[in-house]
């Protein structure tokens, strides 16, 4: 084992998006020695793509807002499967997390009286998203990155972690390789924070980049942690559908927040045709009222385009399936119509949605100030992930923490737009704080060389095999499979088939072969990501098969209704002693009396 470069830190953070960086900043401020490893270069993680904003009840734009309303909105959006304690912490702490970014250099858009401006978003009762045009994620990641580099954090870029290491029951660190040269690295640490993001690459049409292969979820699962809510995958309603090469790239919900409307090929605003019961009282019933809402009229109710993402995505699927879609299999999203209402609309749109304007102009030859966009659902986010303690973000493995998208609990069955960036900040900070605390309370764990040797051997095996299937073929087959059989609309027979296919792909992945050498070898990197992808895909399909109802991001064609009984359970996944995947129903974390009161108040 002496041949591998070995590092020792108090806290190892895996992932350098918003959650990982915020955790590292906090752990380092607490005086611990921190290392951050990331698959990409610093500042390139998917947080950079977040457009709309970060939800925080600062009440800068509408003084009726408070953490209580934000809590109630989050629980309603998550269809009450959320961990209420996490939803409470999130709603209470988000405003401070946003304000401290400003002190670290973030430049938010401003209100007329010079405070941080907040915008409307789906499922949020009041304008709540602090933002910078439509590039809020870039502002956030850059602010955290620039703040972090002055804190003495050891940043190691382009490192992929292949396994977590354990000392008995507790975490002992991790092992990975650098993408540049393919050298193995061993990280010995008292605490590990997983902040690896999502699983979007398990699907064919996704807004996620190559990195999002479910590494954190899979690493935690293999290390003995539990996964929760894996059936809940969010399909963002508006991704680009044309041209083919950009299919899946996100079109921010901010377009609808600024007055963009969805129409089918008959020109009808079809979202008015299907407003769920529990949102009826808070949703506009005519176009005029919807417009007044997006322009800040406090007496108006929100337009149905701003209903929750799961619902809007399904309505779009229905329009397309019933023959009312756009030429390339989506529907129309139109912001250009606001020229009827706003003077100098093209300039207004470019100012409010600069990167959307740029994206469509450059990639699709479409001027969104003049013509509608074509949009359709794209795999965007996984609500499920590592089960963690609400306060500390620690999993059931001592010393193993998770935060951000790779953790579960805050969002329940469906995440509200804007609650992700605030999630990263609030729980990234908590994970860093408690990881540091944990690290201070324990001794340096022992490294177990057989674990390291086994991982190293498995990692180089694809070079030594001949004639196995290539990694790209396996990955593509899996993506097609998940898209077709475990996507937006699910059925028992299809998910059963998905599981059979996953089993056969696992066998192929165990025999995958790659060529070339270990230096920056994309084929090898793809092969190394297969295990995580297959693990999380299996988790999604197994949990999806078990939940025989439709709720939030999980829609069953064969069980289209919501089932009150199922509303009392989460689905938990763990690795059984024989290596198989165990799937169990576990009771939800109950709301306290106070939580219930808040929900009632805000009905």
């Amino acid at each position, binding site marked *: 084992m002496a041949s591998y470069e070995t590092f020792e830190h108090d806290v190892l953070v895996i992932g350098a998006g918003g959650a990982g960086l915020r955790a590292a900043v906090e752990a380092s401020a607490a005086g611990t020695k921190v290392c951050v490893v990331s698959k*990409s270069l610093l500042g390139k993680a*998917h947080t950079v793509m977040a457009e709309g904003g970060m939800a925080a009840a600062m009440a800068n734009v509408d003084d009726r807002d408070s953490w209580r309303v934000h809590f109630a909105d989050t629980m309603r959006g998550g269809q009450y499967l959320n961990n209420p304690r996490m939803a409470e912490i999130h709603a209470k702490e988000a405003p401070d997390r946003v304000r401290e970014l400003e002190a670290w250099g973030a430049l938010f858009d401003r209100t007329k009286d*010079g405070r941080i401006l907040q915008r409307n978003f789906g499922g949020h009762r009041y304008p709540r998203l602090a933002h910078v045009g439509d*590039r809020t994620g870039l502002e956030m990641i850059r602010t955290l990155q620039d703040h972090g580099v002055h804190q003495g954090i050891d940043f190691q870029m382009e490192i992929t972690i292949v396994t977590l290491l354990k000392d008995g029951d507790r975490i002992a660190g991790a092992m990975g390789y650098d993408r540049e040269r393919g050298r193995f690295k061993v990280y010995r640490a008292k605490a590990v924070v997983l902040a690896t993001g999502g699983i979007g690459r398990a699907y064919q049409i996704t807004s996620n980049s190559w*990195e999002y292969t479910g590494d954190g979820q899979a690493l935690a699962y293999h290390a003995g942690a539990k996964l929760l809510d894996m059936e809940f995958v969010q399909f963002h309603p508006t991704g680009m559908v044309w*041209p083919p090469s950009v299919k899946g790239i996100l079109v921010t919900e901010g377009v609808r927040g600024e007055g963009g409307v969805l129409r089918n090929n008959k020109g009808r605003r079809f979202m008015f045709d299907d407003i769920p019961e529990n949102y009826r009282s808070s949703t506009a019933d005519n176009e005029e009222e919807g417009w007044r809402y997006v322009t800040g009229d406090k007496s108006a109710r929100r337009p149905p385009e701003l209903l929750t993402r799961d619902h809007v995505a399904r309505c779009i699927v229905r329009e397309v399936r019933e023959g009312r879609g756009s030429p390339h299999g989506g529907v129309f999203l139109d912001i250009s119509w606001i020229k009827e209402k706003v003077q100098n609309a093209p300039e207004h749109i470019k100012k409010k949605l600069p990167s959307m304007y740029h994206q469509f102009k450059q990639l699709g030859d479409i001027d969104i100030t003049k013509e509608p966009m074509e949009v359709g659902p794209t795999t965007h986010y996984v609500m499920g992930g590592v089960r963690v303690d609400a306060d500390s973000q620690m999993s059931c493995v001592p010393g193993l923490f998770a935060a951000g998208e790779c953790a579960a609990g805050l969002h329940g069955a469906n995440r509200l737009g804007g609650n992700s960036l605030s999630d990263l900040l609030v729980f990234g900070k908590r994970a860093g704080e408690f990881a540091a605390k944990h690290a201070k309370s324990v001794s340096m764990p022992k490294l177990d060389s057989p674990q390291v040797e086994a991982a190293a051997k498995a990692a180089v095996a694809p070079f030594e095999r001949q004639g196995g299937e290539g990694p*790209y073929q396996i990955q593509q087959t899996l993506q097609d499979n998940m898209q077709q059989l475990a996507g937006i609309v699910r059925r028992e027979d299809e998910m059963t088939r998905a599981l059979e296919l996953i089993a056969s792909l696992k066998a192929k992945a165990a025999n995958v072969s790659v060529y070339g050498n270990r230096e920056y070898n994309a084929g090898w990197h793809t092969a190394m990501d297969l295990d995580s992808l297959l693990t999380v895909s299996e988790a999604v399909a197994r949990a999806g098969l078990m939940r025989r109802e439709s709720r939030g991001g999980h829609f069953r064609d064969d069980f289209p209704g919501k089932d009150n009984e199922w509303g009392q359970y989460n689905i938990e996944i763990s690795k059984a002693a024989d290596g198989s995947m165990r799937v169990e129903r576990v009771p939800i974390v109950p709301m306290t009396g106070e939580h219930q009161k808040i929900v009632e108040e805000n009905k």
Partner: protein
Amino acid sequence: MANATFRIWRGDKSGGGYKDYPIETSEGMVVLDAVHQIQASQANDLAVRWNCKAGKCGSCSAEVNGFPKLMCMTRLNTLDLTQPVTVQPMQTFPVIRDLVTDVSWNYEVKKTIQKMKTRKPDASDGTWRVNQRDVDRPQEFRKCIECFLCQNVCHVLREHQMFSEFVGPRFFVYAAALEMNPVDAADRVADLKDKHGIGLCNITKCCTHVCPEEIKITDNAIIPLKERVVDEFFDPVRKLFKMFKG
């Protein structure tokens, strides 16, 4: 659409050369799609950096037919496909492999720029009241996606290799964002002159031309910073004033 040939540089720091790959093109394709297609079907081990595929992360910088570009935002219908399309790594930074270069110098340079130092909050809630028109300018600089294409074309770095004297356009933009941040109270002007080599920039605007975010790097960031240096260190009236003040 017609088929095309991509002539991609393959190799590492010990050397390399161009290799031709035929591809089938389709509507709306960008250079990065072509590279991915080649990677998936003809050269699994082809090294390329990318992330967002939407011009927002700045990972896939390269030189396409000699022009510094983000591969994800360069559509094939803007290129002459009757000729082979040449793709090579950025030339200013050391190559790691194929299209991937070692840009770590940039991350080191950033550390030398003084970090944000907040002025005293002016509102009773402990925050700042800041007018939108006062953040419009630095917000332009904050659009930077750190693709380092400006660094790649700057002749002070590309031709003269003055990596130890000069931080390059990216970090003048970065410094300008801090200097013009209404909440910041630090002073970076002496550093810009002495440590960061702003005087070496002779405003040829190459950086501005290649910026995918269309930041007016030279006009809006570098020139105002140069003016601050002049005001503080070379203004004869101020010099005189300082002399009398002792």
